[in-house]
């Protein structure tokens, strides 16, 4: 549905987006991850046709965005970063304006308006000026304008940014409810969001795609993938450490807060191996659990080099162009 080929964006001598290529199919929710200034928003702006790429091309439902921009834009719903809206309009005025701009009129417009208001739970505030709304409601107004024309492609730049946990949950539910029918790209800083919603993850840093895979595959890159944590009843794991270390299938053992962190070799199933051993040798075992795998660690490993984060490279010129070109 969305085909991105070799997108490049230069701001003067600085390359903000460097040869980005990927596809999103119907039913996909693609999570776009990366440090601030990595090129996420710039890439999204190019896909929506707002920003012309230096080179490369994007096709939306088979339509080239650069060649037939207006037609391509009909197939896209876009939520820009930090949800810019016309503050002096009321919710209903604003959404009516969007519907009309989207070429909807009469009964069709009324139905679309109703659907968007229902979907985003805006009925209670529909006659309020947007500037009087809370951040959560504004974000929902942004979502409502993006889904107004029921587009096959949704591009959402940080849809849950600045929302409280309940509102985040609400927006996630909304996105998930539309997932089957659409191709969705969303950018976020929240990794649990990616784990919870996305079936594909792209990590981008310094304008380049580092990783394009499923969240499960991404988790495999964790240094503790397949590792277990073992805790003994008396807390002293000193003696056991060497025993475990010599076991076949154990790559390394580490002491961590009175527990042993055991990493596997060749994808050995450590849990059953250690259980059997513990039962046979009567270890005073208190717990044996899979190590806590956090996507954040993977993210940090991938996007940091030599302990330094890959620096923000978006120049001031880029900001002028697109609010905060991240």
């Amino acid at each position: 549905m969305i085909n991105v080929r070799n997108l490049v964006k230069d701001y003067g001598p600085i390359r903000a987006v460097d040869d980005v290529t990927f596809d999103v199919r119907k039913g996909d929710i693609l999570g776009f991850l990366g440090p601030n200034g990595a090129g996420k928003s710039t890439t999204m702006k190019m896909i929506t046709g707002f920003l012309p790429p230096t080179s490369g091309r994007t096709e939306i439902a088979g339509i080239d965005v650069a060649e037939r921009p207006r037609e391509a834009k009909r197939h896209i719903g876009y939520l820009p970063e930090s949800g810019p809206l016309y503050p002096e309009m009321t919710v209903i005025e604003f959404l009516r304006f969007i519907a009309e701009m989207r070429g909807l009129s009469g009964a069709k417009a009324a139905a679309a308006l109703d659907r968007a208001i229902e979907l985003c739970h805006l009925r209670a505030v529909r006659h309020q000026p947007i500037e009087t709304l809370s951040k959560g409601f504004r974000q929902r107004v942004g979502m409502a304008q993006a889904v107004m024309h029921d587009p096959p492609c949704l591009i959402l730049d940080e849809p849950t940014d600045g929302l409280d946990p309940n509102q985040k949950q609400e927006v996630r539910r909304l996105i998930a409810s539309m997932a089957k029918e659409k191709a969705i790209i969303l950018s976020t800083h929240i990794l649990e969001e990616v784990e919870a919603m996305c079936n594909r993850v792209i990590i981008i840093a310094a304008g380049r795609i580092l990783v394009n895979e499923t969240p499960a595959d991404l988790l495999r890159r964790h240094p503790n993938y397949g590792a277990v944590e073992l805790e003994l009843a008396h807390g002293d794991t000193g003696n056991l450490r060497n025993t475990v270390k010599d076991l076949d299938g154990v790559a390394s053992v580490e002491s961590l807060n009175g527990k042993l962190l055991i990493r596997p070799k060749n994808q050995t199933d450590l849990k059953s191996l250690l259980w059997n051993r513990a039962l046979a040798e009567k270890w005073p075992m208190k717990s044996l659990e899979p190590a806590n795998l956090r996507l954040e660690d993977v993210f940090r490993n991938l996007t940091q080099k030599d302990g330094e984060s890959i620096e923000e490279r978006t120049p001031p010129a880029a900001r002028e162009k697109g609010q905060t070109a991240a």
Partner: protein
Amino acid sequence: MKETVTLFKREFMGYFRSPVAYVFLAVFLVGAMGLPWFLGGFFESNDASLRPFFLFLPWIFLFLVPAVGMRLWSEEKRSGTWELLFTLPIGIWQAVAGKFLAGWAFVSLAIILTLTMPITIAYLGSPDWGPVFSGYVGSILMAGAFLGICSAVSALTRNQVISFVVSLIICLALVLLGWSAFNELMLALNLPVWLVDALANFSFVTHFEGMVAGLIRLRDVVFFASIIAFSLAITVLILER
């Protein structure tokens, strides 16, 4: 085309959603009618014509049209809404035209509200309606040319103050070029007459004066129309970057 109309409606109504419109209308009406009365000897001249009224207009436009035009694109850029606008299926030309026409309609409304002046004159005496009509046509055309320049300038910056000041300076230059005192100064500096004439021909005032006198000449209309078209084309180029 339909999108242009939709945008026009939103923009035009937008002026009245904020108090800015009412402040503008009040200041404009007080200025446009007050200056000829108190400075222009409108009443004392004992002449049933709107000439003093029209001759002050370029100077009032100079300050007030940039006040309307400064936000045309600057505001959209600052708040990021132009990202929203240009991801809707609307061409840049259509968006530029829609916003410009809305602003022009708003300024024209302000001009039309000064029709109380000719009504007053008609009550006091018997004015020649020809120059009144052509003067109003000229005023609206000239306001459009001012606004076109403001549109181009406001597309350049997200800062409304910069937008206002730069627009004002450009418009001031275009007014001054045709001001007789300024032309005499240029002649006194030994500039060749043809150059002074050519420069004066670029002035809004030169082309406006004919209309105040009652002449709607094609070249004056073409002048204002081409200033509008040219500045909107520049706006499009800037926004396309």
